[in-house]
């Protein structure tokens, strides 16, 4: 659905996005993680045909972002929620959505049905005639999402949709995104909220001007250090350490009777490790897996 090959954007001498390559399948939620200034918004703007690329190629549902005729077709099949909601504060929620429905060339019936559908879904139908300026940040964000969906786009670009929202509103927006995922919408999510990316995204790209890594959250986590097993013992002694040495393990760290051991295949290696410790007279208090988090992955690539 989204094919990006070596996409680059330069503003004079500054390279905002440098040779980014990735692919997003239909119905997939793709998260773009990166610090401020990493090029996330610039990438979304290029893919939404708001700004031109400097080099490389990108296609949205087969349409070339660099082709003027295609750019109008792309804008018809995408929805964009920018980092600033940008509603017309004097107009009601209904009129805001109706205006965009007209520009997206929806007929009157489709506009009416979709506005009601999304405002009901977001719990704002009763406030449809209230001026947008009177809404809270969370409500405005919901209207901005409804605005991007009014023409039933195939692809939705969300640029930091939960930034500046309170936890409850953030949760509501995340749940709404998951609802859209069930409807097989392709979603491109810019965020620096790692928890959000982990909960929502099928695939994640870590961007820091260059695309540092891509993969599913699990793949990325495993790419940091594989797996580690943590074993808490009553007492670690030389006999136990000698027994573990014989297993040819990669790394063993002993910290206050807590052994952290690098393992390649935990299901196969963990029973052997525990058996060796018990044979050496050790008393195991607990065994647990130490998994790298998305935060570890993020920090590894953006530092």
């Amino acid at each position: 659905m989204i094919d990006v090959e070596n996409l680059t954007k330069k503003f004079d001498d500054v390279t905002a996005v440098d040779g980014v390559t990735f692919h997003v399948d239909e119905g997939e939620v793709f998260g773009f993680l990166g610090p401020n200034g990493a090029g996330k918004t610039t990438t979304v703007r290029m893919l939404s045909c708001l700004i031109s690329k400097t080099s490389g190629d990108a296609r949205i549902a087969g349409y070339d972002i660099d082709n003027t005729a295609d750019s109008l077709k792309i804008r018809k099949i995408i929805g964009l929620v920018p980092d600033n909601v940008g509603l017309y504060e004097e107009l009601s929620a209904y009129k805001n959505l109706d205006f965009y429905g007209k520009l997206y060339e929806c007929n009157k019936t489709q506009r009416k049905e979709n506005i009601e559908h999304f405002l009901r879904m977001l719990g704002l139908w009763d406030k449809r005639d209230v001026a947008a300026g009177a809404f809270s940040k969370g409500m405005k964000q919901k209207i901005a999402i409804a605005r991007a969906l009014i023409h039933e786009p195939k692809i939705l670009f969300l640029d930091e949709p939960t930034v500046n929202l309170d936890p409850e509103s953030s949760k509501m927006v995340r749940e709404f995104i998951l609802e859209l995922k069930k409807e097989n919408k392709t979603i491109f999510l810019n965020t620096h909220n790692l928890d959000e990316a982990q909960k929502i995204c099928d695939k994640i790209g870590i961007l820091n001007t260059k695309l540092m890594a891509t993969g599913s959250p699990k793949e990325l986590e495993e790419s940091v250090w594989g797996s580690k097993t943590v074993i808490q013992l009553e007492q670690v002694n030389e006999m136990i350490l000698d027994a573990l040495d014989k297993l040819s393990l990669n790394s063993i760290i002993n910290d206050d009777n807590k052994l952290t051991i690098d393992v390649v295949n935990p299901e196969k290696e963990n029973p052997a490790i525990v058996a060796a410790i018990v044979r050496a007279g050790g008393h195991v208090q607990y065994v647990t897996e130490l998994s790298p988090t998305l935060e570890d992955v993020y920090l590894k690539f953006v530092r």
Partner: protein
Amino acid sequence: MKLWKSWVIASKDFSVFRKKKSIIYSVIIIPLLMSIILPFIISSSGLKSGSITIGEFTALLNAFSFFFVILAASLTTVIASYSLLGEKVEKSIEPLLATPTTDEEILLGKSFAAFLPPIASIYVGLVIFMVLIDKLTYSSLGYFYYPNWNIAIIILLVAPLAAILSVELGVILSSRVNDVRAAQQLGQLVIIPFFGIYILGEIGYISLGINSMLLISAMLLVIDVILFYISTITFRREEIITKWK
């Protein structure tokens, strides 16, 4: 180009303007006041007492009718600045540009929004002005002074061309300033040359007759074409997103 999309954008702006009292007051009240005040000033000019000649009197009428050109330029600047800069300040320009609408459709829609309300208001004001002038001066002149070719050129050429100039200036200013009031204040500089012409006509240094009006129209047309070129360069999607301050 789909004209109906430009009209959708203009209609949305009209809805926004209706909620802005400052815009309503400036667009409706000022031309209305001028259309009533100016005829009464003229009626007390001394034609009846014979202190001024009919030639001087008609020159005064022509100068006063030119006042509506100043209003056309001034009021359009107020709305053009709000229409374009308002989108920028309220950050609504990005979602608007993300719709399947061309730059030309958006620019035309914004131009309609800035151009039509002041022009409509000035036309209404001019009709009131002409009716009152005719009513107040018929007994002295012995004929209805309006309508005449002079006012027709003002209505059909000079005022619309002056308003277009203000719209284009509004587009260019919107790309350079961040504040609606600053844009409106800077935009008001557009009235200086018009005001200069008005003063020169008022003191009798130049005649604001048909020939002068046609010459002013021709000059405005040339300036409008140049500013149109500059404003279309300024109003490009990428420029707006990345370079408008």
